């Protein structure tokens, strides 16, 4: 019987290559489902899922909610902003109160790294990490790899450069783990101030020259400058960042080959990529969003099958 090796999806670090392949093969079938005229299957009609977001999100939250509804699960949503968290309730209390309402699975975004892991040790429900601080964002990494696989047929052997704020990015960390597991080559590119000190220990190379990095790669994953996480100045001005690490059409056209552009969203148009790049045929940004629903359906379906 094919099943995931884990009961929670806390990060790519905790799963293996076989898990990734199983998620992809299941997502292939769900992608077909969401392109039907009736986009819904009844698999999870006896499962209730709580989406608990302690941090803002539009895309991820909508994508999870849609995935859950497409699987016929019952869904409840919770935002920390309008809740008793403001009154001083602890995380475990908040979640246990929600679980008392007979919830089987929790999808959580939290500003603190490791919040999902902590929760999985203390509450009885399957946990899906939808982003925990600067730690991991596993479903984003899975949908990024799935989009690369869709474009190229395979992830193994592909050259991927991740550009931008690597230091604060959970997308970067999860992507590095996922890509390395699948046998891709990974480089990171960005200002030295936004590079974690020991990034080399993850088996990735650092490149500070964007043109060199782009000429090397098959795929460039452009990260957003997360102004909300930049507590001090890591680069002089946004304008200077854009000059050094922003991708525009002229730069793309001057490369030796046609590369694929990805972005986890939301895009700061004109900062990390210009509008004409975001909307060009080399960009697979909207495919990523579509694949996000299929990937999240696969993750939820596979985890739900392990709930006894």
């Amino acid at each position, binding site marked *: 019987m094919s099943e995931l090796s884990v009961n929670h999806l806390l990060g790519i670090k905790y799963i293996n290559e076989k898990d990734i392949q199983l998620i992809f093969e299941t997502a292939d079938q769900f992608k077909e489902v969401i392109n039907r*005229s009736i986009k819904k299957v009844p698999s999870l009609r006896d499962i209730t899922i709580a989406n608990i977001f302690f941090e803002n999100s539009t895309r991820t939250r909508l994508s999870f909610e849609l995935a859950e509804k497409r699987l016929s699960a019952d869904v409840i949503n919770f935002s920390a902003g309008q809740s008793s968290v403001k009154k001083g309730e602890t995380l475990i209390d908040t979640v246990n109160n929600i679980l008392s309402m007979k919830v089987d699975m929790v999808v959580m975004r939290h500003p603190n790294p490791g919040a999902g892991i902590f929760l999985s040790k203390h509450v009885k429900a399957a946990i899906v990490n939808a982003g925990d601080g600067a730690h991991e964002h596993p479903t984003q990494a899975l949908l990024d790899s799935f989009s690369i696989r869709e474009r190229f047929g395979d992830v193994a052997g592909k050259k991927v450069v991740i550009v931008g704020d690597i230091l604060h990015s959970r997308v970067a960390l999860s992507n590095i783990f996922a890509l390395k597991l699948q046998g891709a080559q990974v480089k990171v590119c960005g200002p030295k101030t936004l590079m974690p000190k020991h990034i080399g220990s993850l088996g990735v190379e650092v490149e500070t020259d964007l043109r060199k990095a782009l000429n090397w790669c098959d795929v460039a994953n452009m990260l957003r400058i997360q102004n909300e996480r930049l507590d001090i100045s890591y680069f002089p001005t946004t304008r200077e960042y854009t000059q050094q690490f922003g991708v525009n059409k002229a730069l793309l056209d001057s490369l030796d080959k046609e590369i694929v552009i990805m972005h986890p969203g939301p895009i700061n148009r004109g900062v990390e990529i210009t509008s004409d790049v975001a909307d060009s045929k080399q960009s697979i940004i909207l495919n990523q969003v579509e694949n996000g629903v299929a990937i999240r359906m696969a993750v939820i379906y596979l985890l739900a099958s392990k709930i*006894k």
Partner: protein
Amino acid sequence: MSQKVLLSSKEINIILHRLACQLLENHLDFADTVLIGMQPRGKFVAERLTKILKEEYKVKHIEVGFLDITFYRDDFRRGDKPLEANQTNIDFLVEDKKVVLIDDVLYTGRSIRAALTAIQSFGRPSEIELLTLIDRRFSRHLPIQPTYRGRQVDAINNEKVVVLWEENDGKDQIYLINK
């Protein structure tokens, strides 16, 4: 574990031809009819029948699709059944069409129940028929009977009907094993 051959390659071939003729009798030129093979094993029956209808009975055009019912099963989280989904490949609408569901073995009827739900995602058919190569009598959990049956078999619960296809397993044969 004992093993008994139910049908040889020659017998399977004769039965498939008979089933093709019965389909032809009811659907003539297949203009308003679609064949849906159920994944994973009904696909082979559907492909064989299509081949016979096209090559030997000169039917010009038949719409054939393959339906996977994994996500529609009623035993999710209940059993030891594998979760792996197969490909669904139906690139047409079944709205107002006569649908013939095709599977290799009809046992409890639960897969067909799931298929009847699943097919609704592709439109509202004018009618649905069921064709199975092997009908295991006395083992139904649901009130479902085939419209066209290849061979009726009396098998008790710890027996299993295994259908082999040349294109997948190297030879055509149907046998019964006693676990």
